[in-house]
C-alpha cells in the first residue's frame, strides 16, 4: 500500500535492468574466502569463516543485493570487494582488472572506481570538516576534475543528491540524519566510481527519511547507470532496490537469483523464513508462518554440510549427509538447499 497526499503524478518505476546486448560484468567475485583466526579458551584456536566460497557477478547498471542477518558475512564480502579487508583466498575483478592482486599503488587508482556508503552517516564523516570539504576531498585526491573546477563540481554533486548551496559550509553534525546520508552519497559518487557498495545505507534513518534516500539512490542509478552492491538485512528495502538478490547465511550464499523469482518462488528455507519474517503491512493480513528455530548459530564451527540444519524446520537426514552446493534450479536462480534440489529434480516441487 502506498499513499500520496498531493495527488501529484507518480514518478517512473524501478530502473530498468540493462538490455541484454550491452551487459558486461563490472564486478566478478570468484570463490571469495575470508577467515578470521579467533581464540578459544586459554590456548585454543579456531577459525571463523566469514565468507566461504562466495561467487558473484554484477553487471553494469545493475543492483545486486546481499541479504542476511548479523554474522552472515554480507558486510565482509562488501569490505573484501573494496579491499578494506584482505581476502584469504579468491579473486575479485573490477571491470576486467584484478582487485585481489593489486599492489597498494594500483589499489589507489582502483579505489576511485569503487566507493562505499556506510550505515551511520555521522560516523563516516570527519566532524571537523565542512560537508563541502568532505565532498571536495575525493575530487582532489583522485583528480577527477581540474582544480579550478572543484567548487563547481561540489555544487553540482550537492544538487544531484538534493542538497542546496546553503549546506556546503555546514559541519556534519549541523545536518539531519537524512542530509548526512545525502552527503555520504555525494562523497561516494564524487570520483565517478564504476561500483558503489551500499552498506545498510538506510538502516539508521527514520522511516520517512529512509524513503527519501531509497528514492534518491534509485533515481541516481536510473540517470547515471550506476552499479550497486547493496547490503541489507531488510527484504522490503531490497525489493525496492535490487535487480538480483543473493541471500547469505553463515558465510555462504544460499540462494541467488533475479529479485522476482527469489521473492516469489524462494528455493531455500532460509529465504522463505526471511520473507515470512517481514512484518505484515496491514492488521488483517496473514503471513506464512515459518519460524526458524533459535538464532543464527555461531559462525565458528558451523555444521559440516548445510549450515542451516540446526534451525531448519524442513531438515531431513540427507541434509547432514551430503555437501550442500549452489545449484541452478531455474534460469539464473540457484539454491544451496539439497532437499529442494532433489524435489526439483524429481518434479515434486510446487512453489
Amino acid at each position, binding site marked *: *500500500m*502506498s*499513499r*500520496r*497526499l*498531493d*495527488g501529484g503524478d*507518480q*514518478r*517512473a*518505476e*524501478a*530502473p530498468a535492468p540493462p538490455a541484454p546486448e550491452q551487459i558486461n560484468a563490472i564486478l566478478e567475485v570468484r570463490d571469495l574466502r575470508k577467515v578470521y583466526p579467533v581464540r578459544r579458551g586459554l590456548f585454543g584456536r579456531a577459525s571463523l569463516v566469514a565468507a566461504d566460497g562466495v561467487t558473484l557477478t554484477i553487471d553494469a547498471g545493475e543492483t545486486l543485493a546481499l541479504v542476511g*542477518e*548479523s554474522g552472515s558475512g554480507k558486510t565482509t564480502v562488501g569490505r573484501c570487494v573494496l579491499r578494506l579487508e584482505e581476502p584469504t583466498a579468491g579473486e575479485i575483478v573490477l571491470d576486467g582488472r584484478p582487485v585481489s592482486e593489486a599492489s597498494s599503488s594500483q589499489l589507489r587508482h582502483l579505489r576511485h572506481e569503487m566507493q562505499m556508503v556506510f550505515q551511520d552517516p555521522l560516523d563516516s564523516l570527519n566532524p571537523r570538516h565542512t560537508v563541502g570539504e568532505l565532498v571536495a576531498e575525493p575530487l582532489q585526491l583522485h583528480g577527477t576534475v581540474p582544480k579550478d573546477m572543484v567548487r563547481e563540481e561540489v555544487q553540482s554533486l550537492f544538487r544531484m543528491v538534493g542538497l542546496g548551496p546553503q549546506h556546503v559550509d555546514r559541519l556534519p553534525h549541523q545536518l*539531519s*540524519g*537524512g*542530509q548526512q546520508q545525502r552527503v555520504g552519497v555525494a562523497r561516494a559518487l564524487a570520483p565517478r566510481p564504476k561500483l558503489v557498495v551500499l552498506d545498510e545505507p538506510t538502516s539508521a534513518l*527514520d*522511516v*520517512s*527519511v*529512509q*524513503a*527519501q534516500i*531509497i*528514492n534518491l539512490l*534509485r533515481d541516481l542509478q536510473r540517470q547515471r547507470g550506476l552499479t550497486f552492491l547493496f547490503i541489507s*538485512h*531488510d*527484504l*522490503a*528495502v531490497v*525489493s*525496492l532496490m535490487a535487480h538480483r538478490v543473493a541471500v547469505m547465511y553463515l558465510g555462504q550464499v544460499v540462494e541467488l537469483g533475479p*529479485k*522476482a523469482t527469489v*521473492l*516469489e518462488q524462494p528455493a531455500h528455507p532460509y529465504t522463505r*523464513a*526471511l*520473507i*515470512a*519474517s*517481514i*512484518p*505484515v*503491512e*496491514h*492488521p*488483517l*493480513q496473514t503471513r506464512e508462518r515459518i*519460524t*526458524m528455530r*533459535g*538464532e*543464527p548459530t555461531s559462525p565458528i564451527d558451523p555444521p559440516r554440510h548445510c549450515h542451516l540444519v540446526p534451525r531448519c524446520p524442513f531438515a531431513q537426514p540427507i541434509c547432514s549427509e551430503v555437501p550442500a552446493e549452489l545449484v541452478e534450479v531455474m534460469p539464473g536462480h540457484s539454491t544451496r538447499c539439497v532437499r529442494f534440489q532433489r524435489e526439483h529434480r524429481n518434479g515434486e516441487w510446487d512453489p
Partner: protein
Amino acid sequence: MTEPILEVRGLRTAFSSHDGPVPVLDGVDFQVADGEILGLVGESGSGKTITALSVLQLLPAAAQVTGGEILFRGENLLELDRKQMNRVRGADISMIFQNPRGSLNPLYRVEKTLEQVLWTHRRLRGGAARTVAIELLADVGLPDPRSVLRRYPHELSGGMCQRVMIAYALASNPRLLIADEPTTALDVTVQLQIIELLGRLRREHGLTLVLITHNLSVVAELCDRVGVMYLGRIVEQGPVLDIFDAPRHPYTVGLLGSRPTVHVEGDELRAIPGQVPDLRNRPSGCVFHPRCPLVRPVCSERAPARETVAEGHDVECHFWRKVAGLVETGRVA
C-alpha cells in the same frame, strides 16, 4: 471501554537547556484499557520514549514533567513520593528496552537477576524462587531454562537476552508492561519470534502492553489501538483498523506510504518531504505544517483542536475532512 488502567492527561515534559526549557512533550493524552495493547508510533524526536520514561519517572536528570496527570488505576503517579513510586515501578508497571543486553547486569548470572526481582516483589527465595524463575524462562520460550539460569548476559544471544528481559519484567506480575522498541535491535527472524511471544503472552496472560515503536508493521502485528506521535503530541489515535484503513492525519498517511513493503515491480516510495524539526524550533500552529502537503495559512497560525472523527478515533488536523475525502476516493491509496 472498560476502566482504563493507565490514563495520561495533558502530559508535558521539558528538557532544561542554556536557553531555557525545551518542551519535549506538549500535552500528551492517552488511555490504556485492561488487556489492551496500545501502540505509540513515531519517528525519532516524537517523544514516544520520553512519554514512557515520564510515566515511570525514570527521566534523565535534565528532563522534568512540567504538567499534566498520570493516573494509574485512578492514582496520580506524579503525586507519589519516591518510596511509593519505587513500589509502582516493577510491582505494577514494568518496562523493557531496545537494548536488552544493556539492561541486564553483566556481572550477575540470569539466576541472580531473577532471584532479586522475585524477592523484592514477591518475597520468594531459595527453591521457591528457583521454581518460579524456571517457569518464567520456559514461559518466554527459552529452551532449557535450567542452563539459562547459570549463564551471564554476554553468554546469551540478543534474542535470548530480550526473552530474559521479558521474563524479568513479568516476574513481579505487573499490571502493565511498557516495551520500548523491543524488536528493533534484533535480527529479522528473531524480531518475529519476539512479536509472536508478546502476542502469546497477551492471549494467555491477558498482558496489558504499551508498545513503543517506529515501525507501523509491528503495530499491525500486535496492537489494538494506536497513537501516532509527532513532536511531542499524539496527532492521531484510534483503533488499529481505523488508523490503517481510514487515517485522517496527513502525517499518518505519510508514514503509511513511506514504509518499504515488498514490491516486486518496484514502486516509488511516497517519502514525507523534509525532516522532523529540531525540538528547539517547534513550529507554530500545527507542528506538522512545515512538512504537510495540504498546508494552508491557518496551519501555521493556529494549532488544530482535537476532533473525534469516529468512535474512539481522534485527530488534530484543520483539514482532516479533506484527508478523509482523499483517502476515501483512493487518491492517496
